């Protein structure tokens, strides 16, 4: 099987620690459920991501070099 998470076009997905999550939620003044979502079955997720975790996605951007977004893992 091909591991798509290693593909060039798939951006880096990493699980965020609880304290970091709190920072992110505080920064945007939101609840965890207001984050964009990602399915647990998504092939881009690291294996240790569990439902309820928040992942950080770092994309390459032509304009900003790096674009960081967060997603809540759901079933």
């Amino acid at each position, binding site marked *: 099987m091909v591991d798509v998470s290693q593909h060039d076009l798939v951006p880096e997905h990493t699980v965020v620690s609880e304290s970091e999550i709190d920072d992110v939620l505080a920064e945007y003044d939101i609840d965890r459920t*207001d984050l964009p979502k990602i399915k647990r079955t998504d092939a881009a997720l690291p294996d240790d991501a569990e439902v309820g975790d928040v992942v950080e996605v770092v994309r390459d951007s032509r304009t900003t070099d790096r674009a960081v977004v967060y997603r809540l893992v759901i079933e």
Partner: protein
Amino acid sequence: MSQGQAPKRIGSLSFGLMDPEEYREMSATKVITADTYDDDGFPIDMGLMDPRLGVIDPGLECKTCGKHSGSCNGHFGHIELAAPVIHVGFAKLIRRLLRGTCRECSRLCLTEDERAEFRDRLDTTRSLGEDLGDVTKAAIRKARKASQCPYCGEKQYDIQHEKPTTYYEVQEVLAAEYSETIAAAMEGRPVEGEDEDVEREPMAPTDLAEETGIDLSRINEILSGEFRPTKSDRQALEAALDVDLTEEDMNKLMPSDIRDWFEDIPDEDIEVLGVDSQKSRPEWIILTVLPVPPVTARPSITLDNGQRSEDDLTHKLVDIIRINQRFMENREAGAPQLIIEDLWELLQYHVTTFMDNEISGTPPARHRSGRPLKTLSQRLKGKEGRFRGSLSGKRVNFSARTVISPDPTLSLNEVGVPNRVASEMTQTMNVNERNLDDARRYVANGPEHHPGANYVRRPDGRRLKVTEKNCEELAEKVDPGWEVSRHLIDGDVVIFNRQPSLHRMSIMAHEVVVMPYKTFRLNTVVCPPYNADFDGDEMNMHALQNEEARAEARVLMRVQEQILSPRFGENIIGAIQDHISGMYLLTHENPRFNETQALDLLRATSIDELPPADGEVSETPQADGEAVDGEEDGTKYWTGRTVFSELLPDDLDLEFEGTVGEPVVIEDGQLVEGTIAEDEVGEFGGEIVDTITKVYGNTRSREFINEVATLAMRSIMHFGFSVGIDDESVDDAAEVQIQEAIDSAYERVQKLIKTYETGELESLPGRTVDETLEMKIMQTLGRARDSAGDIADDNLTEDNPAVVMARSGARGSMLNLTQMSACVGQQAVRGERINRGYEDRTLSHYKKDDLSADAHGFVESSYRQGLDPQEFFFHAMGGREGLVDTAVRTSKSGYLQRRLINALSELETQYDGTVRDTSDTIVQFEFGEDGTSTTQVAHDAESPMDVEEIADRVIDAEFADEAERESFLRGETGETNLSEHGDTWRSPGSAPEVESDD
């Protein structure tokens, strides 16, 4: 709008079912009679037009609230239904509840664990803001699987739903011929319905009695049909004899049964299904009381002949009341069950169609004329319904619509408004000392003379109409503090729009220029953003009615602010068509002009002085240009490029590959080299326009586009430009060559066909031989057309107007030219040669299975020569496909557009840079993930943004010297990618308190 003016503020909305008691409480009267008015025309008490339900006739007083028509909103009444009736809108929910709950104890057929699971899932879905329907559906599916109630143990039957409002319980009952079946099985015969070869041991009655534990005498009674076996007896008999003694029976559930069933569902059980038991009880779905809408919601109209015509809803209510009464009478008279059931069904039908008259499987209730009635649901649904027709979109005042026509003398920011429109649309002037004279003059002009006024409002609030008679008199009374509704005058800002409004640039703000005649006039360079042409297109204009709107329109919506398209970040406004031909003629061969000619070219621009001349006419004509005709020696001349350069900003430097494939070089605002055409100044990403907009700003760009357009018009008029059919003819020699090219292609096609027929054609990889042949023929013919086109191309001179248009990108292409002068080429339907029509041939003119070029739609003629009948027919086939495609595409993309707009309309970019929906869910953390606007940033895949270069430029511009720069850069650096409010949110209380102004 200030807050104080809102009559009422909506705190919250709650959706739920209504308690029948609530219907009764809010009802102004019970309605018992189907009649509306008595013989004298007065509404009948407790009828459908009871004055307590509100008033529509002016002068009458509402018996409930005492107000008059207009201020009384109307009041609901109610009808007590003779029997409960199902509400069609809830047909699916009823089915689900019936399937998921126990027929005996009405509890939801889920164990405690399962309930807890679904409750949890409901909570998570709710907090994720997703659709609860999926969870409740899953819960019902699970509950339905239970064959026995987990609480009372009752066996559950399947529920069948017959649309729209009939429900059956599929029960197993003792079959009618049970005794025969038992007898047959005891004798070892095959039972009815079974195969002949089923073998069964015969069984004596004594054995049977022993095995089943039933008395022998009872078995005999059962066999003789005197006694119906009980349920347990039946099961025992079935087991012993291996037979099925039951048959399916559809037991109809009457609405009253369903209501009783639902009444027993406990509150906590419906909570598991996502229903708020405080607001909605399932039994309320079954109507026992029907609310009667107020008269104001179904006003009757008095026709010319004095007859009253009632609203469709009233008609429907009349039906309901009539049947309701008949139902009650029949029941009291003790009518047979059959009749009662019929009436019940009829009542159900009328109540159903009262709510929705477009239910599949139910004939719609019709008017006497045969027109289907428009009932409640029809008032809401669809394009003309309450939501899309009356709430999302409304008709507005201060708007005008008329045909558009071009006016190259206008600026692209302007719109020509016919004076009749200008005198109808008004702007409110708040009169003060400074504009008093103007205001008086407008009023004095009256409503019919153009810069006039239609209304004035006195300081006491009274509005007076300005008439031809009172205008002089009124003008003298106007004083500071008055309001004058004056006509539109030159310079007012209006909004201009052309449907379909597919993008932002479909609605732009223009400045008014009042003009004679009846059309809106616009500069042709704004045609691309509106997608307008002048073949009868109409456009809408809206006059703005307050300062805020006018300011917003001027700053944000003016045409010049929309030169760059947010779709692709380049200019969407620029030179088009003749502008481009004109610029091409002016700059391509760099012709020379004498002083008069040069000044004439620039006369409509802001240039009023010529630059130094490019040279003087000398005896020997210079290599780079012809001498100006008939000029004497020593006369000064200016070249086309020099004239064009006058329009450019003085310090513009630019170098790129131009439209005609040669480099375009601009140094210090001088066009040194190159031809100005589409890619330079055109509508979609003309390099010079784009650069000027981005570097010098929208105003400079507007000036440039306006001046390019006028210069181009002057220059095309100087040279003269016209196209005719003869411009596309080629000489005889070329004609012969073209014919030869086509003939040789025909020969090659024939050769291909021959090799195919002898079976020698080798197929291409992945294709059949047939496909290969088709492909090769298409290729051969395509090449034939191209070479014919090349021959024609060589024969047409560079100054041929059609060639000029094609080369400059003004209009048309070399392919169009080929088709006009050489050969139209292969016609295609669905990307293939034409293969349809008759059996094994396209037209009856050809032999069957003829594979040749002309039998399958190759058009050898050119448009100039004209097509022969077969060619014409094939051409029409290909043309039809194109028309169908566009028709289908527009409708498909229109629907897609609607869906997209509805899905995205609530998204909003917040001040912290995030994009969120109305429930504050984040869609993007930074607008577009980079926080940049397409129109503010110029970059693409080939030339990525050079962030450092930009940063250096900004820093260089910012600081006077190195020391200042160093001290600033060494200072504190803030975090990046944080929201604007990041710091204040993190430490509540530290933010400076902002005074609220209310």
